[in-house]
């Protein structure tokens, strides 16, 4: 672990006094390595360790062990501050129905997450409607229907020959007349560099005016996370992220990268395939995981 590595490093520091630049340089190298191994973006790491260095040099320490503890604390605090809070509970429209748009790359876990959001809303006493706008992926609508059944939530669909924009407009009308409180709009996976599909999702957003635009991202995403986050945010002005598959052992450094380049909060974490496997984001737990 980083903590152990730093303890070994500072063992020679038997004296007490202030940490010098030389003392800190090697520590910073270890921290950089730990963050890159955790998939934090290269450039985000660069800025991050510059700040750590600034804070660590001149720190008053009592011993080698104390020095390691000091540096680890600086890293934890800085990481936690950067990750920030979860942006509060999901927003609601001034009058129902509230729409949530769920977007992201192929295979990130959007459809499953829509089911989790429906279950979450039902627990809160709401009446959600799932909307199937993935008309491209084979059996995508059936998948959402099976999901809907599992979370006792109706699924609005118009088959695969109607455009996503038309589907979502009809869903909105249906929700209004049937008294649904929330629309959870599942969309097809798409690449941030596919202009046609990015234009399509912007059009869907404009048609449904969502209160939340949630970018679902696989927690094991590597250096590319910043590109994805930047592009989706630039085109859609997302309201936050949902990081999935955190029940695995990936360190999840992508979390730091996406938060730091967009400033948008991580709202929820997906921690399993079942529909109750959705946690509200808390910076402290993810911090421990990233540091390793």
């Amino acid at each position: 672990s980083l903590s152990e590595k730093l303890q070994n490093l500072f063992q020679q520091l038997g004296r007490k006094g202030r940490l010098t630049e030389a003392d800190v340089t090697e520590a910073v190298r270890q921290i950089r390595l730990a963050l890159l191994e955790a998939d934090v973006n290269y450039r985000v790491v660069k800025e991050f360790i510059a700040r750590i260095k600034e804070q660590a040099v001149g720190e008053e320490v009592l011993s080698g062990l104390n020095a390691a503890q000091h540096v680890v604390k600086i890293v934890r605090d800085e990481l936690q501050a950067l990750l920030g809070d979860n942006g509060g509970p999901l927003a609601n429209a001034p009058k129902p129905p509230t729409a949530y748009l769920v977007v992201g790359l192929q295979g990130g876990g959007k459809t499953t997450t829509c089911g989790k959001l429906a279950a979450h809303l039902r627990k809160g006493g709401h009446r959600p409607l799932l909307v199937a706008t993935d008309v491209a992926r084979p059996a995508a609508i059936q998948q959402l229907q099976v999901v809907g059944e599992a979370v006792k939530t109706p699924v609005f669909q118009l088959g695969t020959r109607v455009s996503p924009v038309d589907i979502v407009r009809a869903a909105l009308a249906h929700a209004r007349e049937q008294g649904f409180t929330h629309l959870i709009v599942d969309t097809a996976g798409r690449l941030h560099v596919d202009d046609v599909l990015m234009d399509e999702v912007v059009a869907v957003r404009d048609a449904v005016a969502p209160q939340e635009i949630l970018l679902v991202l696989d927690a094991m995403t590597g250096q590319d996370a910043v590109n994805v986050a930047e592009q989706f945010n630039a085109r859609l002005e997302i309201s936050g992220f949902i990081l999935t598959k955190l029940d695995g052992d990936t360190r999840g450094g992508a979390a730091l990268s996406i938060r730091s380049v967009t400033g948008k909060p991580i709202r929820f974490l997906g921690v399993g395939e079942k529909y109750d496997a959705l946690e509200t984001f808390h910076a402290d737990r993810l911090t421990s995981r990233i540091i390793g």
Partner: protein
Amino acid sequence: AFRRSEITEDLYEALEESLILSDVSVETATLLVDRLRERVRREGIKDVEAAYDVLQHLVAELLAEHVRPLPPPTRPPVVVVVVGVNGVGKTTTIAKLAALLKRQRHSVVMVAADTFRAAAIEQLELWGQRIGVDVVRHQMGADPAAVVFDAIQSACARKVDYVIIDTAGRLHTKHNLMEELRKIDRVAQRALGHTVDETLLVLDATTGQNALVQAREFAQAVNLTGLVLTKLDGTAKGGNVLSIAAEIPISIRYVGTGERPEDFAPFDPQRFARELLP
């Protein structure tokens, strides 16, 4: 490309950064740049472009011995079990591979052994209809090993060339799911009378350093023989395969470059190296 006029330490640092940004592990990036440094020194390379080419060469070299096509059906059926974590593109890859083998005039059968995930069987069935390949299936919730046993028995009887088995996505951290995979492998072996011909790990190019962990863990559970890298049509470069190639005796068979059946090609190390360092 790089706009520096001479080979300095700055250039080496920039190249290392470029590799890391492509998801090459720090360890492998350092190794490659050290090898480059050595070649530059030994060969007296002065030109940045030339150094750049050497690095691309070193990357291709690291991967060259890991390129080998799927085994031919000299004793049919060739059984291919497709495995990997959730959402990486296993089902889509199976359809692409089946379509490719069919174009090469082989008889192919796909097996819907993901009996867990919502509409997984329907997804593979729709693919089967689209590309004109039969799909063997049971009902959702059936024992995947039973589906596999059934499918292999029938393929042996019908002398089908290739049997491609779809399995549920599973995180390597889930002990019971990895156990299930071992069971599928054992049962397949029993139905076949010998070990499965190919166990193909599907990896997402957008995955970071966890890719190596996935490869290691899956290689522990079953005899991994091949790898497919998907979603290379995005901006991720898939540098994660370099550390895998360095550590695990596995052939990188194909790459996925989109969602259609034709978005599939044999792995080409030269091309991969060029794309890794644009």
